[in-house]
């Protein structure tokens, strides 16, 4: 899938903060992938049963993260929650990346009236503050994993479309594209062989940087009650479940929130690392005013 250049790893290990971010992301991805197989109480995690005798137990050896209003073990629920955050965030980013790349490519390379119309539509979406349009759409579509993904992706692609459009436009008149035209390659061949490969880097990098935000926005939708429905232990939902018991059983909201915070910090740190790695101007600051 993604090939990590070896000197990027070296770059990371030399910077403890970025390395921490990398480790957090790695742990999150691994736990999210194998979550169903490492649960000690799967029925608690999936929320299929309840045990009122054990409700609102504070954190202890038996229940490290305590139990919720229905006596379910919070540690198990938080672990399984990572999987939903991972799946939703990746789907949102990949889906909007795909739409954004196609729209930006068509608008940038083919241009003309179609290009203008596409970019105007993109601008219409960008006129909304982030998340707000997704909230409206999710409210109309109803709760669900798929609708959450759709609501977020529909409002997310315009950022990639714009970035792709700008990149394609700057490459379109590059000497090697001109040369390809001169030797008589068709428009499609030029697009497939030169334009696409050379314009993907910025937009794909940006998408990688955005995974943390996607996790946060999905959790926000769930917190507002328009995202993932119960009993799915998505982190935003778990926090909102604990909301009404906050004075009585703070741990219901505390631990999913810490998991969410750490994950987003991890992705943001890794994002900063990628940005710094790819921008030599930031990398080689030697001396600042003494």
């Amino acid at each position, binding site marked *: 899938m993604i090939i990590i250049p070896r000197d990027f790893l070296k770059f990371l290990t030399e910077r403890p*903060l970025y390395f921490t971010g990398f480790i957090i992301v790695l742990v999150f991805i691994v736990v999210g992938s194998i979550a169903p197989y490492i649960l000690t109480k799967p029925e608690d995690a999936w929320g299929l049963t309840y045990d009122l005798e054990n409700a609102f137990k504070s954190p202890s050896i038996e229940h490290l993260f305590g139990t919720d209003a229905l006596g379910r073990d919070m540690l198990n629920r938080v672990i399984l929650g990572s999987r939903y955050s991972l799946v939703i965030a990746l789907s949102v980013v990949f889906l909007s990346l795909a739409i954004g790349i196609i729209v930006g490519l068509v608008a940038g390379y083919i241009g003309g009236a179609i290009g203008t119309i596409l970019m*105007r539509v993109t*601008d*219409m*979406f960008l*006129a*909304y*503050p*982030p*998340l*707000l*349009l997704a*909230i*409206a*759409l999710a*409210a*109309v*579509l109803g709760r669900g994993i798929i609708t959450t993904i759709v609501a977020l992706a529909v409002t997310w692609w315009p950022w990639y479309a714009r970035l792709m459009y700008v990149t394609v436009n700057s490459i379109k008149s590059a000497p090697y594209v001109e040369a390809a035209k001169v030797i008589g390659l068709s428009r499609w061949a030029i697009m497939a062989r030169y334009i696409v490969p050379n314009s993907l880097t910025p937009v794909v990098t940006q998408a990688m940087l955005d995974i*943390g935000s996607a996790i*946060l926005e999905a*959790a*926000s939708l769930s*917190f*507002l*009650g*328009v995202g993932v429905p119960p009993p799915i232990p998505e982190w*935003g939902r778990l*926090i*909102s479940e*604990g*909301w009404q018991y*906050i*004075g009585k059983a*703070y741990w219901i*909201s*505390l631990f999913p*929130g810490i998991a*969410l*915070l750490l994950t*987003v*910090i991890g992705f*943001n*740190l890794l994002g*900063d690392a990628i940005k710094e790695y790819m921008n030599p*101007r*930031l990398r080689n*600051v030697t*001396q*600042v*005013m*003494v």
Partner: protein
Amino acid sequence: MPISTGYIIKRIIMLFLVVLGVLIIAFIITRVIPARPELLWVGPRATIEQIEKARKELHLDKPIYIQLYYYLKDFFSGNWGVSWRTRQPVLIDILTYLPATIELAITAFLLAFMLGIVLGIIAAINYGKVVDRVISVISVIVASTPVFWLGLMLQLIFSIWFKVLPGGMRIDTDVAIATGFKPITNFYILDALIQLNISALINIIKHMILPVAVLMMYPLGLTIRTTRSLAIESLQEIYVKALQVWGLPRRLILYKYVLRNVIAPVIAALGLSFGYTITGALMVELVFVYPGIGYYIGMALLSFDYPAILGGIVFVAMIYSLTNLVVDIIHAWIDPRVKF
């Protein structure tokens, strides 16, 4: 003068087009995507007659472009529907709730801006040292924090455990009654100042501390990061080195030369973060039961009050476009390098 009247007129025309775009998308979401839009309009306990009436009112029996025409017409004549929850016209509701949010957002923004620039500069002049590392870590953490969770936790610590700050509302009812505080403009700080009501003012500020603290996190992180990286760049410039060689005091170099290069881009970045702050306000106000426009939309979401949800969201999107315009103009005014 870098800004011309022509530029501002052009931007205002563009603003109008943007608002039109916002409305068209809202129209698609409310009237085209749902299978039966009239059901969203009248609420869950409507009679068949009411539903029929709503179908007529929304012109759902007409072709789609006629529907769009009536939608825009209703919008510009202020007919935004009636909220099921408050039984009030949505536009009137929004205007009642708006001042609380403006008060909150402006306070959070100003604090984030001032604190962020100071911390960013401190980090930059201590580049690579412990202070810089600590400030950088803080800036990443505050920008990554889920606002709704942080709100809950601060509420837990300061109003449930230690009971030092109120956990909700804009003023305590008993304080309002005892001091005879009356909302006039609905900007409570302003109202308390007009009435020279100091104890009410203190109570209002106490109520603002936690929501403002949560709301300023994202812009604070962004301001620190932007200021830091710009200041680092600017400190490396040759002219800064020259100034040092000439023996100008450090403080003077910082204030007069470095800060000037930093402020304009920071304002531009803050303008961008305004969108996040608005959606943040939605959750912060909901958690702190702070009756602003975010609380209004949040409650509407929890009760599936569609006219209120969509009216609120369209309104916020318009404010957002307007803010972008103002930020661009301020940016052009401060930074002579920006030309339009």
